[in-house]
């Protein structure tokens, strides 16, 4: 996955992501595709969660999957979640849960809770930083005003790091893939360098749905695991999602 939260020169925030899933789960040698990725793509949908006919929050999901991995509360915040691979992974959390330890939160249910109950960026940031989780992960959060953007690197127990936008010091975007931002990515899976190169080339002046969509459509940020690109602008309450395809030649991840 690749998530970007970026701020334009006027302080308007944009949040976008590529959702990549299906690594090593069956390679179709004939079509050069991942089997699970291809099965997921037709299931992508935008959901508006409503109460009394009013939109409470929006999310992108797959049919039958109730969790939120990408979502927004219009006017308040935007959020996406990226996988963080770790030996102390979610399977241990599941085992603990099965053994009766129910202190940890399920990742994609916690994001539903945040979208349902958060009233501010700060409140969401605190919840996503402090709650105990069943699996490690990266929460990418955007607020509704200048400087409100961060990447929360989570272990199952605690927040390991909060990386924040700082437009006053030139940090006008954050780009998170599936590696801790203070470490080098795996050398065979470096989507960060080309992603940042394209963001820098786009420049802050051209931040917007078109500019960020182009970055997320550049290989290998776009790869054979990419199912969709979602684009969010919090103040306008806009969430656009597009199925993605990576024609050969294309990296498998």
């Amino acid at each position: 996955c690749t998530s970007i939260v970026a701020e334009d020169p006027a302080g308007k925030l944009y949040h976008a992501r590529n959702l990549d899933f299906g690594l090593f789960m069956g390679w179709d040698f004939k079509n050069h595709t991942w089997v699970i990725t291809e099965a997921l793509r037709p299931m992508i949908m935008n959901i508006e969660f409503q109460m009394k006919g009013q939109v409470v929050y929006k999310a992108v999901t797959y049919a039958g999957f109730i969790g939120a991995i990408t979502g927004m509360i219009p006017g308040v915040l935007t959020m996406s979640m990226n996988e963080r691979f770790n030996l102390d992974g979610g399977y241990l959390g599941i085992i603990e849960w099965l053994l009766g330890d129910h202190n940890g939160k399920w990742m994609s249910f916690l994001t539903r809770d945040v979208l349902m109950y958060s009233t501010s960026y700060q409140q969401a940031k605190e919840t996503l930083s402090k709650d105990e989780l069943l699996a490690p992960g990266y929460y990418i959060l955007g607020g509704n005003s200048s400087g409100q953007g961060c990447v929360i690197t989570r272990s199952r127990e605690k927040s390991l790091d909060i990386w924040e936008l700082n437009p006053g010091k030139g940090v006008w975007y954050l780009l998170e893939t599936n590696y801790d931002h203070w470490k080098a990515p795996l050398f065979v899976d470096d989507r960060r360098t080309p992603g940042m190169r394209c963001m820098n080339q786009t420049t802050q002046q051209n931040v917007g749905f078109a500019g960020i969509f182009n970055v997320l459509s550049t290989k290998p940020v776009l790869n054979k695991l990419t199912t969709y690109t979602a684009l969010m602008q919090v103040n306008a309450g806009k969430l656009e999602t597009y199925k993605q395809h990576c024609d050969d030649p294309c990296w498998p991840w």
Partner: protein
Amino acid sequence: RLGPPQKEECVTGKYPPPQTAEYQVPKYVVNLDLPAADRWTHIVKERAKSIVNLLQKFKDFVKALDAKLAEKIFDYVDHNLGNLTNTLPQPYADEIKGIAKATEIPLGEVLLYNIFYEIFTV
């Protein structure tokens, strides 16, 4: 060789993508005023085939690794894993049960799909 070298130019002009089914995503409403078990029914009934297809692809993948092990895993999933749903927080437990009922997919399989994230972070 792991793939093409990373020499791609940053692409331009990709937005907006074509207004075709190949790129466009449908929108649905989930009514939170409904009981949790009924919220997703209108969506998953319409999309049951694609959910079954996804789960079948996953089963095929596990079978290809080890057929006997796959049989044991999915026997456990279909007959035991569903019980885990009762321990999940609400309203998510009831939403998952509602999806299983509406699609007639075993509860354990619907649950497995919904906890993919936790399973695949290793």
